[in-house]
């Protein structure tokens, strides 16, 4: 996995701030995976290495490591598009247990 730069920028005063919102780090800091109700689980035995799940993931929360998909559960919101699009049907959406 890529190293996550979860550096959170907090300005102490308006004088330090730029005029507009740029790169305050909120996207990396806000772990949207917490929103997930169902989680994708990939059966790598059946995986065709086609990369379609990676291509379709809107987050994007799937990375390809050694030609195979790996879900980044910190950011996966559990939308299920990967499971829907997988031609080998090797991704199932399982109930999230927290």
């Amino acid at each position: 996995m890529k190293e996550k730069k979860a550096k959170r920028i907090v300005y102490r005063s308006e004088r330090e701030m730029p005029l507009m919102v740029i790169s305050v780090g909120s996207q990396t800091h806000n772990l949207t995976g917490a929103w997930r109700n169902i989680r994708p689980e990939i059966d790598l035995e059946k995986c065709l290495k086609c990369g379609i799940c990676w291509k379709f993931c809107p987050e994007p929360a799937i990375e390809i490591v050694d030609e195979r998909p790996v879900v980044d559960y910190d950011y996966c919101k559990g939308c299920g598009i990967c499971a829907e699009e997988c031609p080998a049907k090797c991704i199932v959406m399982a109930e999230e247990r927290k």
Partner: protein
Amino acid sequence: MKKVIMGNHALSYGAMLSRAQVIPAYPITPQTQVVELLSEMCASKTLDAKFIKVESEHSAMASCISASAAGARTFTATSAQGLALMHEMLHWASGGRHPVVLGNINRAMAPGWSIWTDQNDSLSERDTGWMQFYCSSNQEVLDSVIQAYKVGEALMIPAMVILDAFALSHTYEVVEIPEQDKVDAFLPPFKPEIRLTPDDPHAFGGLTGPEHYFELRYKLQKDMEKAPALIEGTGLEFERLFGRRLGLVDEYKCGDADLLFVSSGTAGYTANVAVDLLRDEGIKAGNLRMRVVRPFPFETVRRILGKAKKAAVVDRNISYGHHGIFYQEVKSALYGVKKAPPVFGYITGLGGRDITPDTFKEIAAHALAKDGPDEEIVWIGVKR
């Protein structure tokens, strides 16, 4: 060079002379000629700009915002329903500090379906964080576009240049077209400090928590507060170069007036005619035409109205359940001013009903007959 052009083309020439670089636009009556001429200018290379045909006004403003974020000078124009469809993106432009310039043709909001003028479309966007310039002649339309870029880019705040449907948009007047090199001297290229670029990638407009949002809005207001002085300053600079003054307001015989009209748009020019007619009858009238409504010129309004004996605010708009919008604002500006004059509020001309010198004479007769306003709204010209 002098040309006889319609108000809509005055907007196009203003954008051309300002060297707008990206023009996303969607046509709507009575704005269409603005973007027709601009598209011809782009096709003939008279103007070196990217003209984008978009699928809606929402997309037009979204394209302006992204192009502006990338450092391009952007222009678009719309009217009424189109402006309302842009509403969400208007907030995005001001909140993101993208100094887009938008020409809006004042057109009454439907229903009933109307293409004629009143100010409720632009005044519904009063609180979006845009500057608003209301024009009373085609010359002022052209000049205001150039000034709007100058002030807007200095403060990173977007601006609307606003003109009445048909009364200006389709009315031909003699307009002095400034020379390009003089406009270039007045308005340098747009070079924002922060912009979208692959060399230094950033996320713009991302999630902003309670720890930051408040300060960003504070900064927007603080910069808006700088705008009145900057508008006056650039207006004087413009006068030195082009011989025409562009201030926050336009004063006409205000000094010794017993009755001061407060007006805007083309009705603000008609008011001057009425002032002369009333003075022929021995009534000392004057006219304060509000050219800029956001930022609201509090100090100027207090200074001029503070000396008046009576004021009659003429609104071609209404805030339902309250009263005329200019009336509210003028009264709020005078709060706490010692010896503030009685202020009367009149609503007239909605949906393009003509406002003539006689309208102002009727208003004057009403205001002069009373010591102070005894009703919140006086309707002029309603058939009842």
